[in-house]
């Protein structure tokens, strides 16, 4: 079953329904860091070298194709060796390449020098999202694709930053050396932002480092560059570079927001409120595997509609969402979502698609479960 799933939904045969059309480019971006600019220079240098060699070689070839054709009465000359010429045409490109190796080595040495970084950010690849932890700042969040699924399935016009937009940007200060510590939760991912010229594999069980120093404020978009499974194409990266003062302000705001979210868990929520919130959370965090319809993609991703977990014992349902299911792709969401979001999404799963348990899971219930575990840590 499920051998070839043809998406039977709308298949736009017209060529024009791209409402937004981002500007296309032919070349590498020079980027916004010193490193990215030296990489761009290297790229252009080697490119023009190749063009020059190509012109000479193909020039001679086409000249002889034109002049030495039999139809023009050309007679074959019988030379078939000239060692000196061969040595020369080997040594010239070799010399050019050695000359190229010098700036390339210098750039590479710089790229491998993360000394004196002012900010450490841990980047963790998940199937299929990124997690950013500002080390020393007690700030930690997940960054999910924000493009609605309707745009992917062509039911809605595509937005300007289609597939390159996320719910939470990685905000970074400009003019500050930032060190990234990269790892992964499951398979190998690769964190790539072209404008920063940072691409480094995130490997489960291993830590890699990379660094950048952004010169200009702005929003820079990238994508996962290593095949990591089904939604490899749907885990973008958005870096928002702001001046250092603004960054400090953002940090303070983000922490305040986190505190407010914890506060929100204490008030009481109605079933409708939870359902509404839960749908949002479900679409951004769960629908990639379990599908918006709740029908999943069995056998890899089981259905939630009418599933024993979603209509059965609520405790077990909470447990699997919080702690994941070992040996499967079901992740532990305890760190990914806050208590309100957890409560909302569980409520949603228990009441959507005809799963009419009528039960609402309250944020306090979740917070208690999480709190009990936290106290158990024994401080």
């Amino acid at each position, binding site marked *: 079953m499920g051998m070839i799933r043809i998406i039977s939904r709308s298949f736009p045969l017209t060529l024009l329904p791209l409402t937004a059309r981002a500007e296309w480019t032919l070349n590498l971006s020079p980027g916004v860091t010193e490193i990215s600019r030296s990489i761009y220079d290297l790229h252009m240098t080697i490119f023009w070298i190749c063009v020059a060699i190509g012109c000479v070689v193909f020039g001679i070839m086409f000249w002889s194709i034109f002049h030495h054709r039999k139809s023009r009465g050309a007679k074959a000359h019988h030379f078939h060796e000239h060692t000196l010429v061969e040595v020369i045409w080997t040594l010239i490109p070799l010399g050019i390449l050695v000359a190229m190796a010098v700036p390339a080595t210098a750039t590479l040495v710089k790229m491998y020098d993360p000394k004196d970084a002012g900010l450490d950010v841990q980047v963790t690849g998940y199937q299929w999202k990124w997690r950013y932890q500002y*080390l020393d700042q007690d700030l930690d969040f997940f960054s999910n694709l924000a493009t609605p699924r309707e745009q992917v399935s062509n039911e809605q016009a595509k937005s300007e930053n289609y597939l390159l937009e996320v719910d939470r940007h990685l905000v970074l200060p400009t003019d500050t050396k930032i060190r990234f*510590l990269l790892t992964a*939760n499951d398979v190998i991912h690769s964190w790539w932002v072209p404008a920063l010229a940072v691409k480094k594999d995130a490997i489960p069980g291993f*830590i890699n480092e990379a660094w950048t120093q952004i010169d200009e404020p702005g929003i820079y978009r990238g994508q996962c560059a290593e095949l990591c499974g089904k939604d490899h194409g749907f885990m973008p990266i958005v870096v928002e570079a702001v001046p250092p003062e603004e960054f400090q302000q953002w940090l303070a705001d983000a922490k305040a927001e986190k505190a407010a979210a914890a506060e929100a868990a204490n008030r009481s929520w109605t079933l409708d409120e939870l359902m509404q919130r839960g749908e949002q959370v479900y679409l951004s965090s769960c629908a990639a595997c379990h599908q918006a319809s709740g029908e999943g993609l069995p056998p890899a991703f089981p259905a939630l509609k009418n599933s024993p977990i979603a209509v059965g014992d609520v405790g077990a349902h909470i447990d699997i969402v919080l702690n994941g*299911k*070992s040996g499967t792709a079901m992740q532990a969401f305890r760190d990914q979502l806050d208590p309100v979001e957890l409560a909302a999404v569980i409520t949603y799963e228990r009441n959507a698609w005809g799963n009419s348990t009528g039960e609402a899971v309250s944020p306090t219930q979740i917070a208690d479960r*999480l709190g009990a575990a936290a106290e*158990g*840590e*024994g401080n």
Partner: protein
Amino acid sequence: MTVRSANRRLITRLLLAAVLMFGFGFALVPLYDVFCRVTGLNGKITNTGPVEQTGVDTQRLVKVRMIGVNNEGMPWQFGPIDSLVEVNPGEMRQTAFQASNPTGRSMVAQAIPSVAPGEAAQYLHKVNCFCFNSQTLAAGESVDMPLLFVIDKELPEHIRSITLSYTLFDISPDKTASRSEEVQMGGSRI
């Protein structure tokens, strides 16, 4: 020599070469380990066990960043007590990671260490580490897991900051059981 016997000799040799290369493929595994030890290629720490104290280099201070990562499906709360440790090369330092098992079942975990930059791995000497053994935590239990390490005085000048990460993998026996069950059922990962 007839062609037939020449062929036979050649086949024997070439088959032998193929078998040797098959073996060589496997030999690449230990060779790679040796290679990593020499070059620090994959940031694996190979210096463990007791160490001779030979004085402290008080001129330099190295920042050691501690990171705890949970691998997929690992619900433990896991992290370092001190996220950043500043240490003189040659100085023995004790720190710890905390772990707690919030689930309702007993679980076994293995911590896998990794160092960035990989080059620093050969200068990070672990006298004692919780990663030497697997950790079992009962439901709701929590534990402080100690780590005793020294940074070699030979650490190159240009390395001023080292990252030591531990990734926690779930190796509970029931997990392996449930996975093989799924395989038998012909289903893939759920």
